């Protein structure tokens, strides 16, 4: 009642609108979104973001002016049926030239940084860049570090402050590799290498996902980018290089480009101390008996190529399973092993008739692979 007398009518009318606006502004804030493209964390992403910010402001300005003119006309030129006929204007060459030229100038203002940005983003990465091969699979991501002889899946580790050069392809259909915090997306093709690079500026774990429709589980083809300080990254690399068929002695730890051919494929991994766990031993046998080994490799170093399923050498340490779909807990992992089709219908991993007890052993075995 008080409001009725206190607030003028037109103001009250805007209350629900303001409320909606407040809601919208809250839901708009990029901080609210883990996968946002509006808070770039790399040199590459900032190139696009700068241009996008420029165009957003131009667009916003044009929006306000043109919609404003439209609203003005809507209210100003309200007529009644019996009003006299308005002045019959057929056009005005001068005005028409002006409103052709002004948009052209605005577009030029967008075109100049665009062309610059195109060439910047198409530039070759520096020679000291860390090389990573990205291979899209229905519906997971394989990452290989050719100079480090490492392979992993669905979680790509990168060092902060060093350019990472991605060379990408697919094992099956077209996908698109998209780590929004670090770069725009780049499609991956069969028989055609595509490239992307960026230099990460902040450590942390960031989500990304496939952005080109690739079949029934396109919606669950995510990955994580784990950006680490150079020291942490180096530690990770050294550790991963021990997860091989024949753990090389520390002194012989391979440097970039050599000792690639030491693989003796098929040998399984032995983790110090882990073999005492009875679950581990049972799980190891089951991993063979249930045929897991046919699709999944457990070696990160000199891993075999062309495996159908994701590499599991460090699966115990990953944040997610099922290509960024489910938190990696013993419970979800056990459920996945027993019935992947229930969690991600259509996934290429079949239900293998694993009992709950067997799943527990397999989880114990896989958990030890860190």
């Amino acid at each position, binding site marked *: 009642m008080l409001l009725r007398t206190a607030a003028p009518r037109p103001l009250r009318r805007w209350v629900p609108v303001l409320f909606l606006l407040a809601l919208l502004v809250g839901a708009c804030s990029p901080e609210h979104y883990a996968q946002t493209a509006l808070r770039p964390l790399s040199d590459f992403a900032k190139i696009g973001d700068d241009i996008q910010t420029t165009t957003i402001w131009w667009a916003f300005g044009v929006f306000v002016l043109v919609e404003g003119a439209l609203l003005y006309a809507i209210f100003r030129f309200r007529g009644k049926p019996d009003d006299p006929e308005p002045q019959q204007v057929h056009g005005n060459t001068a005005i028409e030239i002006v409103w052709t030229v002004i948009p052209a100038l605005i577009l030029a203002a967008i075109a100049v940084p665009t062309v610059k940005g*195109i060439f910047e983003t198409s530039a070759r990465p520096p020679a000291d860049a860390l090389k990573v091969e990205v291979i899209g699979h229905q519906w997971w991501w394989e990452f290989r570090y050719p100079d480090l002889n490492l392979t992993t899946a669905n979680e790509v580790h990168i060092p902060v402050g060093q350019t990472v050069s991605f060379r990408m392809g697919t094992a099956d259909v077209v996908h698109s590799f998209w780590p929004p915090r670090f770069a725009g997306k780049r499609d991956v093709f069969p028989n055609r290498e595509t490239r992307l690079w960026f230099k990460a500026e902040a450590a942390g774990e960031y989500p990304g996902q496939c952005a080109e429709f690739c079949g029934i589980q396109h919606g669950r083809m*995510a990955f994580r980018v784990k950006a680490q300080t150079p020291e942490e990254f180096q530690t990770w690399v050294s550790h991963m290089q021990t997860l091989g068929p024949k753990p090389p002695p520390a002194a012989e730890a391979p440097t970039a480009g050599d000792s690639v051919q030491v693989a003796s494929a098929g040998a399984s991994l032995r983790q110090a101390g882990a073999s005492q766990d009875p679950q581990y031993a049972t799980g190891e046998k089951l991993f063979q008996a249930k045929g897991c080994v046919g699709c999944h490799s457990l070696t990160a170093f000199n891993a075999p190529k062309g495996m159908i399923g994701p590499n599991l050498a460090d699966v115990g340490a990953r944040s997610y399973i099922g290509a960024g779909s489910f938190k990696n807990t013993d419970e979800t992992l056990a459920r996945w092993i027993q019935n992947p089709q229930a969690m991600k219908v259509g996934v290429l991993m079949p239900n293998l008739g694993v009992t709950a007890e067997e799943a527990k052993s397999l989880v114990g075995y896989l958990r030890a692979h860190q």
Partner: protein
Amino acid sequence: MATTALDQQRAHATAGHAEKSGLWSWLTTVDHKRVGILYGATAFFFFLLGGIEAILLRIQLGSPNSTFLSPDTYNQLFTMHGTTMIFLAIMPLSAMFFNFMIPLMIGARDVAFPRLNAFSYWVFLAGGLFLNSSFFFGAAPDQGWYGYANLTSRQYSPGMNVDFWTLGLQILGVASLAAAVNFFVTILNMRAPGMKLMRMPMFVWMSFITQVLLLLAFPVITVALILLMFDRFFGTHFFVPSAGGDPLLWQHLFWIFGHPEVYILILPAFGIISEVLPVFSRKPLFGYAAMVFSGAFIAFLGFGVWSHHMFTTGMGPIADTFFALTTMLIAIPTGVKIFNWLGTVWGGSIQYRVPMYFALGFIAMFIIGGLSGVMHSSPPADLQQNDTYFIVAHFHYVLFGGSIFGLTAGAYYWWPKMSGRMLDETLGKVHFWLMLIGFNLTFFPMHILGLNGMPRRVYTYPEGLGFETLNQVETVGSLILGLSFVVFLFNIFKTARGPRNAPADPWNGATLEWAIPSPPQEWNFAEVPAVHGRDPLWEAKRERGGPLPEPPRVSGEGIHLPNPSIWPLVAAVGLTGVMVGVMTLHIVGPWGVVVGLSILFFGVYNWAFEPAG
């Protein structure tokens, strides 16, 4: 001339032209107005179907990790939603207006090829049924409306889903091409005396440009679909990488068609708006010549921008630059159009009737779609935007905020002419406000979600990425949007029970269709009109110093009309039979195709040797 023996004989044969009715009269009709109504009714049915599909998709996305739809069902529904809205709703809704309105607006008695016109409709209907019959096999297309290779290969899509899509689009392409030839010739050859090209109503101009686009763009998709069909049925490898084929070739072929297709969808709406705005502003269209040339320029440039759909494929800096700049160029003629519409309204005496609401809504919404379009013309920015909900927002602002608002304006504007009944104004305004609010609630938040990392075509999203709130808002919006069309349907049914109350010229129209009774008689114009300017009816009214008298309904004695024919329908059934035959090759061998071809030839043969009138 009018009194030769032959003419008298024909006049005798068709004297009186009793009002035709009954199922047979509809199956054999070659009257462009009836074909137009068939197009409209069918397309509106498919539009509602596509809308229901969309609401199901929205319910699934209303909450994270939802299991309302299975991933497979979701993928089928989003593919069919896009395919339906583009090929079975917006294009044929435009075709409804081409059919019904173009002959009336240019002062003709029918289209150039009336039986071909009927054929186009029947083929369209058959194609739409063929495509949607896939639901009964649980095998609706599930690869997205642009069907990127190599997901569409037998290896990765072994089911019938992609077959339905490939062959269904092929059928629909035949309908579009036949109609395009027809209207191209109609507009060039059938105009009333005095209607020079630069006197044509803007809707006719934009329709004409659309036919040119159809004629040039559809052959490309036809070729692409034939290649895909051969890959899938006959073991060729155009898009199969393991045999040296290239999936990227599909993307180029598809978008060389696909981008002009965007203008095929929007130019007719541009034309409708350019008719509605002057009439309800009581002022001629501002900058007529600029409107014609900007439309033609948009269409021309439309063939040089296709790769802006492919910036993320890594084409290299030269190609990226070229396609970025041509794309930006398109914004100039588009801007010219928007400014000219504003110029039309400016200084007018705006009559706030329902068609005008939708026309003004069109401008307001299309501006947003145009501006987001400029935003992704820049490849470095588009690398983030492409394949996200930002794109989904953009093209819905263009295709819904643009095409559908425009087509709805046209529906309210021409409804009295087509049905002879006025639609209810209040219900119309309720429809408008619900649609405007529902539309913006559904699609505006998609901009924000897209820029904040939500990719399109995902059947669900996990918790924790922040997508929940706005997706919920969108789902509510989509229900409001659906409700707006319930109001529209109610309006149609309510007024259909009332009397035929529409006068010939309810809006103080400027163009020829308002000079004849509502609904028009079968021959449209008892006397072919002579045209002396761009707004012939306004000129006539000015000369007379007031409204024209209600035109009388005449007997039509002596007016030659084409005979009805069943053969277009038979030929359309045969053509569809061929495609069904291809689908069943592995079951019955070539015999399905043989039967289809036989019916097709039988129909075409009888058509060719049928006495024309």
